[in-house]
């Protein structure tokens, strides 16, 4: 276990391994995304109550699931970088923030579009939507804090603290928003039961959830590679890489 831990702390090793993972993971992910989307869009039956609009589920739910998981990835990476002073964890945390924000945005946007035919309105202050919105703010806060520092090392430490504070708060926010919604519920919106989802609709959904997890991993690795290059730009191995890449 320890050798791997040490290797993870080595930028050239991580850069190379991320590259070789991406070489096969990225095509597979894109293939899975296309397959899942086509399957969900064209080859499944429409839902009994919502009709065809339910097909948005194949991007909405995976994006929401991964957006939440992404915050934990970011916060855990932050914790590792604070506790063990591992610089590469810091890189992972910095890379995760914009990706997570983008996934949260996808979840919110597709949710709003889905709301129009289902509930008759673009936006509802429902518990889950509201906590997703707050999650979006938390992600943007981390991005904004990172950009505000000139000293990038301090920036990532500060972001690590902030994302840990956010992680402690996420369950509290989630529970309190849930409670708040129960207090104010207007009884105008009825959610259709989710457990009744048919297995023929379930398989493409599971595929899409897997694909979105893989996509998050890919984006994380892609961003980490750029970040590593930027941080290590003074070192010999990066210079060698640059001269090799620049040659036609």
């Amino acid at each position, binding site marked *: 276990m320890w050798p791997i831990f040490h290797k993870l702390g080595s930028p050239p090793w991580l850069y190379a391994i991320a590259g070789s993972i991406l070489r096969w993971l*990225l095509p597979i992910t894109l293939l899975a*995304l296309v397959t899942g*989307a086509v399957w969900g*869009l*064209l*080859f*499944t*039956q*429409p839902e009994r109550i919502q*009709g*065809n*609009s339910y*097909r*948005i589920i194949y*991007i*909405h739910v995976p*994006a929401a699931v991964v957006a939440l998981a992404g915050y934990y990835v970011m916060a855990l990476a932050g914790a590792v970088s604070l506790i063990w002073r591992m610089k590469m964890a810091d890189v992972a945390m910095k890379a995760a923030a914009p*990706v997570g924000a*983008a996934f949260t*945005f*996808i979840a919110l*946007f*597709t949710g709003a*579009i*889905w709301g*129009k*035919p289902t509930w008759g309105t673009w936006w509802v202050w429902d518990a889950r939507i509201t906590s997703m919105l707050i999650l979006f703010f938390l992600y943007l806060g981390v991005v904004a804090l990172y950009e505000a520092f000139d000293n990038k090392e301090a920036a990532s430490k500060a972001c690590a603290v902030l994302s840990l504070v956010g992680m402690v708060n996420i369950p509290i926010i989630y529970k309190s928003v849930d409670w708040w919604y129960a207090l104010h519920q207007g009884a105008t919106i009825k959610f259709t039961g989710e457990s009744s989802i048919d297995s023929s609709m379930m398989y493409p959904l599971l595929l899409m959830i897997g694909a979105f997890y893989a*996509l998050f991993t*890919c*984006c994380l690795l*892609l*961003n980490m*590679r*750029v970040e590593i*290059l*930027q941080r290590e*730009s003074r070192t010999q191995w*990066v*210079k060698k*890489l*640059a*001269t090799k*890449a*620049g040659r036609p």
Partner: protein
Amino acid sequence: MYFDSLQAALEMQGHGMFVWPAYSVTIAVIALLVITPLLRRRKVLRQLEAQARRAQGAPAGRAGGER
């Protein structure tokens, strides 16, 4: 395939105007997520390469001028 024709798939019984924009925005965001780091990586590498060439090209004269 569930739909009979391309037309039917695009319309989705009136829900196409919601489903297709949702998917296209998602595709756009994903494309942005994947392409931006690739472009940035190329840019960083090019900059470093140019820097190295400049440093190599005129070592004595430039070094004196910069410092």
